[in-house]
Every structure is written in structure tokens, then in C-alpha cells.
């Protein structure tokens, strides 16, 4: 087997278990004596709990226990918190309402957990949950953030007057207003970014086990960041001290952000295991996932973009209302602030930017990071506005963008970010060529002959990934550092285990991380194993989200490898009586450069552990650890083009082609990177054309709570994608990686909407652009 290092299209090592049914997810775990849990949840969007009677449920067959919020509070379990402090522009801290893992006297959204029922089987637990009698005093509910800000709206939390969590700003208002006042042209947009449900295919699950003998807890959970889960559950929720709590995230079936956060269920299962003396497993039904997984997006934004007489952008003003749902989820406050407004310069030179963001409580599921997290919202408003401006100004959308591109780096934007490297024109050209942009008018005319409406739209996105320099995010309010750790353990026979704080839930780390090591040392990737997802094995880590595992997680591995290599070279030099500076590592051996003297890697490893003949004073063994803290964000960017055909009779839209031209910096495994783009683009197409979480405005019921009601993209809804990459290596990390996990979901929605609105000749269209909405917009436009 040859060496499969950086840049190789290596088939994934982890696939074998998944394609043979041997993957091990939380739901697959079985412990002796384990029982099944079902949560009693609020059927009301907003109500006071007047009483809970569990007596009937306790008598049901198989029931082991029924526990409520009062008992949870009596045991000192803490409230769920948001870990990123945002201050309003008046200097006051964000107004965080209390979120008890089990509601005590009030429920604030449909699905709010009220009690846990534990029984021998899930069926029995479900039956008993129906026998728990909860009396509610139902209150008025509000589901739209705009409505929640109105005087007289139902109030959710006493801490947040008027349901306002914060009123925050970034940038400079005065020069922005001046730019708009003196502009030759101002494009004004009302932008709605629809609420989405992440819908990882594996529903959330938790298995809590309290070991009485050791006074120790173990939690198997569907987490993207088990160490953060342990930290938060220890430090804030008083579940157990860190040394008494092990968190394991085994195979996890997709996350897309929704499995970053610490939810009530894992806390309650751990606590309930101690209370009942049995291991307690809970697995969400899909409807439960729809109701209680943190949702994404849900912004309403007013935009003004100012241009001078030469069509150069002179200013951008953004006013956003962000729906946070009923409680502040773990990183909710960072999403519409530092992950959003800091990207409002896009790929463009914009001298003045001002953003105002109001975060609002409503009687809906909590909202937090979902693939892209803030960056899709920024890109959507910018790229819809750019395309609209081009139409208003009568210029080519491509050329308007090109004219305003940032071309010199580093580039300091007016909204914190300093872009380190990029080449936006190259991506634009690549996308236009792949899409045959120049040939579009002929295709449009041909479609017209057939009675169809063709449209083309583009989007030039930028995102900030590689999250993130710890000191920088700390100064912006983050409660954690965002470095990553790695430990490279060389075994005595030369095989290697890499322990990483990153977590793979579809990204293929077991392959790409092994490629890095195999390439460096010249050994087969079969000899490299990646260990992740267990707080007992990996000391500490920050997990996987924000396209950070390559740029940050692999950089930590790289740094640890530096140390391993340095020690190995010392040993090799000693063994071969050569100068340390002459030792090179090639093809699985340490060689004296320019000679045929060498020590094979496995012999070197053995020498490190036998320790019979090491340099004087050297410790035996070969194992090194590194914590890597990035010096900057990374800035993946690219250009997406979508071409659609609309049937004017039915409003049905077909995507004819979708082109993605991305700059991700250096790439470890092109096959995996392409897969990330495919998946991200499909999610973005889903947002643009199919998906939307809908709450009944009066009752607060989630209307879209199953796959019968919420339209997931299916194979026939999306085309095969044309993807390509260019490369301006990231100067900020040793591997030159920018990150690729979220780009597809960030860049695609505006490209799709620009294409559809181009086809129908009306800009009055919101996501998801369903056939009904497209038809209505088309016919409203043609009436005038």
C-alpha cells in the first residue's frame, strides 16, 4: 500500500463500518439494566404550569420513575446558559431568561420539557408519559420576532423587558448614513431569512449512566463537541465535576450545528440515572427533533446599499431583527452578531458599514448555529442586494461585483475582519466559464420557444472559518477559547494513534487526519488511527463546527507532529552517529541526507521505547501533544451560479445547472471537499426552494413537524453539481487550509433566488420559493 498524503483522493477509512451496518451510534448502545426514557412536553406555546400529577403514571406497567423540574431544582441542577456575552449598544449585558432543563412553573414553546418518564420499554414509557397529568394556564403566544417587539406583546421572561435580549450594533453609523444621503443610487431591500430545521438524519439521543461504585457518570450523546458538553455540564449545570463525568460522542449521524449545543435531555438523563439507579436512554422521535433541536436563521432585515455615480459601493446599512426562540441556546448570541455582521463587507470594498441587530424572544424552539451560522444570512442579504442593484443600475451583475471586488490583501474591513488572502475574480471567472454564462441569452431564448422562463443568478460569498483565535473571541464575549488539541502517540512498533479534540460526524477525519500523518512520515494510512469523541481518551478539545477541523484541528496535529519529528530526528542522529540537521524523513525511514544510511520508522519507534540507546538525558517514549490557537480567522470565498427554468403555468422551478467555484486554500482530500460542497449546496437549495419552519401565528404550534410537512431536499429536487476549486493558500495556519464545510450552504441560497427572480421578472419573492409563491409573484408581476 502506497503513501496517501495531502492532496490524494483517498477513499474513506471509516466507510467500511457504515456500509456494512457496523457503525455505532448512541441509539445502538446497550447497557445492562438500561431503561428507556420519554419526555413529557408542553403541548402549548406559552402557559403557566399549575400542577403536575405523576401518580397514575407511576402505577403504569414497567415504569421505573417519573421525575419533574421541582425535583431537578431541589437537587441543584443548574439552568441552561448561553456561553457568549453580548452587550447592547447602551452597554448593558444581554438579558438572559432562565431555562430550566425541566420546566418548573412555566412553559414557553411547544416541546418544552416538563417531566421525564423512565420505563422498561419505550412503548411503556410513552404510555406512562400520556398518563402524567399536567395542568396548564394557557397564555397568549408570539412566534414572530417582529410581533414580539410590539407593545402589548406577550412577555416571555421577566429578565427581558419587551422580549428584547439585546440591541447591538457594529460599524459606524454616521459615515454610513452620510454615504447613503449623498449616493448616486441606493438599493433598498426587505430581506427575510427563513427559519430552518437542521435535520441531521440521526435524531438526537442521550444515554446517561451513573456508576454508584465509582460515584461517576458517563454520558453517550449525539454531540459535535463532547468536551464542551462535559465542561458546560460540570461548570454550569452541576451534573458532576469534570473528573467524575465522561462524555462519549461515538458515531454521530450528522450535526450541521444542531449537535453543538447542550440540551436539556442529556443533563436530565444523567441526573435521572442517579435518581433511579438505572442507565437511562432517550432517543428523539423525528417530530421531537423538529420541535426541540435548535433551529437556524429566522432573520428579518432592512438593507440600504449606496453607490456612487461610477457604481462603486459607498456604504451599507443593515437593520436586523433576529428570532432567538424561547430560550438562549449555547452560542445563540454569537450567530447574528459576530458571525454575521462581521461578514457584511462580503468580497467588496465598502468604506462604511453599519449594522444594528435586535435579538428577540418568541414562543418557538431556541435558535442557534445551523450550517454557516450568521454567514449565510450576511451573504444572502448582500448577494440579493448586489444582484438587485445590478438590475436597477442596468449593468451586468458579474461586472458590478468585479468592479467592487477587494483585490489587495491583507484587507481591513470596517466590520472587524481582516481578510488575509483571496482572489475573487478567479472564482468569478471560473464559475462563469463553467456555467457558460455568456451563452445564457441564447438558452433563455430557446426556453422561451418552449414556453419556459429561464433565469440565471450568481452569488459571490465570503465566510470566516477556522474559528477562532481565543483571545480575539474572548474579547468579543466568548466564554470559551477556540483552539484545538492533538496528541500523536507513536506506538513501539511504529503504528500511530492521533487523539484529536475535533469530532467527525460525516466529515471523514479518520481519513484526512491520517493522510496528514501518513504524508509527513511516509507510512501507509492503515498504520494511523484517529481517536476522537471520548473525554476519557482525548484530554480536551473544542470540537467540530464552523469549518474549523482542518484549519484548527489538523494544525494542532501538525504541531504535535513537529515535536514527534524533532525527537525522532534526535534519536536517529544518535543511532546513526550523524548530525541532527542532516536527518530527513522520507518513505517511512529517517535518513542521513545524501547517504544511504537510514533507520526505518518502526525501528526508530522501537528504539524510543526500548530506550537502550538514547541520547544522554532523553526521556524514553515517543508521544507529543500540541494545543494550536489560530492567529486569525480563515476566509474561504467563491462564486456560485444557478440557472433555472420556471414553468409559468405551475410556478414549478427546475434547476438546470448549479456551478460552484470555491477557494478553500490547500486541500487534503479533494473527494471529501467536493462532498462537503455538494451537501452544503443541497442544503442551500433546500432553504431557497423547499424548507421553512412554520409556526401557527396564533397558537404557536409547529405546523411543519414531520417529513410530511417540512420539505427536505430529495434526490429529484437537486441536480448533479459542477464544482471546482482554486487555491490561494491561507497564510494564517501551517497547512494553508481555509475550510470547506459550510460554503455550499452559505453561497447557494442567493444564487438560486437571483436566478428565479431573474426568470420571472419579479424581485418580490421570499424563501422558500415554492411553486405557489413563484406562480403568485409571476402573475402579480405580469398584471402590472
Amino acid at each position, binding site marked *: 500500500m502506497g503513501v496517501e498524503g495531502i492532496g490524494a483522493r483517498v477513499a474513506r477509512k471509516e466507510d467500511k463500518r457504515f456500509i456494512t451496518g457496523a457503525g455505532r451510534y448512541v441509539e445502538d448502545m446497550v447497557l445492562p439494566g438500561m431503561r428507556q426514557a420519554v419526555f413529557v412536553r408542553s403541548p402549548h406555546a406559552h402557559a403557566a404550569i399549575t400542577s403536575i400529577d405523576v401518580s397514575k403514571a407511576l402505577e403504569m406497567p414497567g415504569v421505573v420513575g417519573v421525575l419533574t423540574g421541582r425535583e431537578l431544582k431541589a437537587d441543584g441542577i443548574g439552568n441552561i446558559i448561553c456561553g457568549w456575552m453580548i452587550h447592547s449598544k447602551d452597554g448593558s449585558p444581554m438579558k438572559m431568561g432562565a431555562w430550566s432543563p425541566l420546566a418548573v412553573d412555566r412553559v414557553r414553546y411547544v416541546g418544552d420539557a416538563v417531566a421525564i418518564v423512565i420505563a422498561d420499554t419505550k412503548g411503556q414509557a410513552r404510555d406512562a408519559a400520556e398518563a402524567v397529568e399536567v395542568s396548564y394556564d394557557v397564555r397568549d403566544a408570539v412566534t414572530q420576532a417582529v410581533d414580539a417587539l410590539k407593545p402589548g406583546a406577550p412577555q416571555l421572561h421577566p429578565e427581558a423587558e419587551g422580549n428584547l435580549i439585546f440591541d447591538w450594533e457594529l460599524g459606524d453609523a454616521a459615515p454610513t448614513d452620510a454615504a447613503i444621503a449623498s449616493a448616486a443610487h441606493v438599493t433598498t431591500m426587505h430581506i427575510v431569512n427563513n427559519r430552518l430545521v437542521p435535520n441531521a438524519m440521526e*435524531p438526537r439521543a442521550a444515554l446517561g449512566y451513573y456508576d454508584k461504585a465509582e460515584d461517576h457518570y458517563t454520558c453517550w450523546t449525539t454531540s459535535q463537541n463532547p468536551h464542551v458538553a462535559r465542561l458546560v455540564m460540570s461548570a454550569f449545570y452541576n451534573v458532576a465535576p469534570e473528573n467524575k463525568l465522561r462524555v462519549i460522542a461515538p458515531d454521530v449521524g*450528522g450535526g450541521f450545528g444542531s449537535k453543538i449545543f447542550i440540551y436539556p435531555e442529556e443533563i436530565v438523563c444523567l441526573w435521572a440515572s442517579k435518581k433511579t439507579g438505572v442507565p437511562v436512554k432517550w432517543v428523539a422521535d423525528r417530530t421531537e427533533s423538529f420541535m426541540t433541536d435548535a433551529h437556524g436563521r429566522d432573520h428579518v432585515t432592512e438593507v440600504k446599499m449606496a453607490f456612487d455615480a461610477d457604481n462603486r459601493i459607498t456604504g451599507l446599512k443593515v437593520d436586523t431583527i433576529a428570532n432567538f426562540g424561547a430560550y438562549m441556546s449555547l452560542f445563540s448570541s454569537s450567530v447574528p452578531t459576530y458571525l454575521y455582521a462581521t461578514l457584511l463587507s462580503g468580497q467588496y470594498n465598502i468604506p462604511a458599514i453599519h449594522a444594528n441587530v435586535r435579538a428577540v424572544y418568541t414562543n418557538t424552539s431556541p435558535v442557534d448555529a445551523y450550517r454557516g451560522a450568521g454567514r449565510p444570512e450576511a451573504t444572502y442579504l448582500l448577494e440579493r442586494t448586489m444582484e438587485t442593484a445590478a438590475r436597477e443600475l442596468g449593468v451586468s451583475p458579474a461586472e458590478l461585483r468585479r468592479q467592487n471586488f477587494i483585490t489587495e490583501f491583507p484587507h481591513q474591513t470596517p466590520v472587524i475582519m481582516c481578510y488575509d488572502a483571496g482572489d475573487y475574480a478567479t472564482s468569478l471567472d471560473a464559475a462563469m466559464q463553467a456555467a457558460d454564462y455568456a451563452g445564457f441569452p441564447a438558452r433563455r431564448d430557446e426556453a422561451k420557444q418552449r414556453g419556459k422562463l429561464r433565469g440565471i443568478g450568481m452569488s459571490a460569498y465570503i465566510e470566516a472559518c477556522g474559528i477562532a483565535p481565543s483571545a480575539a473571541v474572548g474579547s468579543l464575549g466568548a466564554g470559551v477559547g477556540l483552539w484545538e488539541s492533538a496528541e500523536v502517540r507513536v506506538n513501539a512498533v511504529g503504528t500511530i494513534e492521533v487523539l484529536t479534540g475535533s469530532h467527525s460526524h460525516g466529515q471523514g477525519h479518520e481519513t484526512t487526519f491520517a493522510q496528514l500523518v501518513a504524508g509527513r512520515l511516509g507510512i501507509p494510512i492503515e498504520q494511523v488511527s484517529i481517536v476522537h469523541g471520548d473525554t476519557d481518551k482525548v484530554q480536551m478539545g473544542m470540537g467540530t463546527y464552523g469549518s474549523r477541523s482542518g484549519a484548527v484541528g489538523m494544525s494542532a496535529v501538525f504541531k504535535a507532529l513537529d515535536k514527534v519529528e524533532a525527537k525522532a530526528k534526535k534519536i536517529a542522529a544518535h543511532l546513526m552517529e550523524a548530525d541532527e540537521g542532516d536527518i530527513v524523513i522520507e518513505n517511512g525511514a529517517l535518513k542521513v541526507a545524501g547517504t544511504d544510511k537510514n533507520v526505518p520508522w518502526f525501528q526508530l519507534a522501537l528504539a524510543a521505547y526500548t530506550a537502550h540507546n538514547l541520547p544522554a538525558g532523553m526521556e524514553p517514549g515517543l508521544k507529543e501533544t500540541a494545543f494550536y490557537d489560530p492567529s486569525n480567522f480563515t476566509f474561504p470565498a467563491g462564486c456560485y451560479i444557478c440557472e433555472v427554468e420556471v414553468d409559468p403555468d405551475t410556478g414549478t422551478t427546475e434547476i438546470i445547472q448549479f456551478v460552484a467555484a470555491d477557494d478553500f486554500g490547500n486541500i487534503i482530500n479533494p473527494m471529501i471537499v467536493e462532498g462537503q460542497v455538494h451537501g452544503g449546496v443541497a442544503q442551500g437549495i433546500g432553504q431557497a426552494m423547499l424548507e421553512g419552519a412554520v409556526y401557527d401565528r396564533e397558537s404557536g404550534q409547529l405546523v411543519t413537524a414531520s417529513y410530511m410537512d417540512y420539505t427536505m431536499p430529495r*434526490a429529484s429536487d437537486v441536480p448533479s453539481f459542477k464544482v471546482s476549486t482554486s487555491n490561494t493558500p491561507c497564510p494564517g495556519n501551517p497547512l494553508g487550509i481555509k475550510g470547506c464545510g459550510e460554503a455550499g450552504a452559505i453561497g447557494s441560497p442567493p444564487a438560486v433566488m437571483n436566478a428565479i427572480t431573474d426568470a420571472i421578472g419579479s424581485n418580490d419573492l421570499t424563501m422558500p420559493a415554492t411553486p405557489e409563491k413563484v406562480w403568485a409573484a409571476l402573475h402579480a408581476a405580469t398584471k402590472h
Partner: protein
Amino acid sequence: MSDVSLTVNGRRVTGTVEDRTLLVHYLREHLGLTGTHVGCDTSQCGACVVHVDGKAVKSCTMLAAQASGSTVVTIEGLANGAELHPMQAAFKENHGLQCGFCTPGMIMAAVDMVNRHPEGLDEATVRAELEGNICRCTGYHNIVKAILAASQVMLKGTAQVAA
């Protein structure tokens, strides 16, 4: 309670289950065959697809009692020992999976799809036929590629056997 008796992955199994036990729960919880997954409550996602008497079935839509007397093949029974089924191999070679959760159902549905189309498959047919299987990771691009590639191998194999 119901007595059930069926053949699963070539093995005779018998047991007594609650009447309401679904086939998927019988496979997972009674037989320990956890490769078959549950991704929804409404028979939409297809993560639970297995073969019952040679046909793809969503095992969340069938009671274990209904399956009594049948021959069931799950993802665990698809490979021939250490030799992967061509569909499994194609999913790996074409990167047709990421998190792996929908994958068992995808593969079982895809095998059935190829079997039902001895004339061969094209992209549009594969996409239409995948209506009952949802994947959130791959955007389907590489799943479609994998199925088309596997169908070539499988049909060639059938032709050779026929010859």
C-alpha cells in the same frame, strides 16, 4: 404478544414480541442488528429499508408479526463474507456517504432499484427512484454516481451468470 419466526440474513430466528413491535425494532432490539436505522416517524426517510422476501421494505412500516414467515436481509447480511456487495463497494469508491446514518437504507433501496431495472438505469431514473430515501449530507450527487456505477457491475454480473 405474538410469536414470530423468520429467516434473517440466512439465520432462522424465533421469538415472542409485543403485538405493536415494528420489524425495525425487532431487528434492532431483539436481534441486535443495529445497522438498520430509524430516522423518522412517518415512513419518509428510508433509513430503515431492508429486504423482505427480496423486496425493499421500510421496516418501520411493517409489524414484526407481519414479517413472520418471511426471509429478511439487512445491511449486515448484504456482503458475501468479507467481500462487499458491489453496491457497498460503489458507495465507498464514489464517496456516497458522509455521516453514514442513511447509508444502510440507501444501499438496500439501491440494490432493490437495480434489481427492478434489468434494462439499466440513468440519472433521472435513479433520482426519481430515490424518492423514499433522504440524505442530509451528500446532496445525493455521489449517491447517484455510486448507484449508477454499481448497477453496471451488478448487471454485468447478472449477464455473466446468464451466459
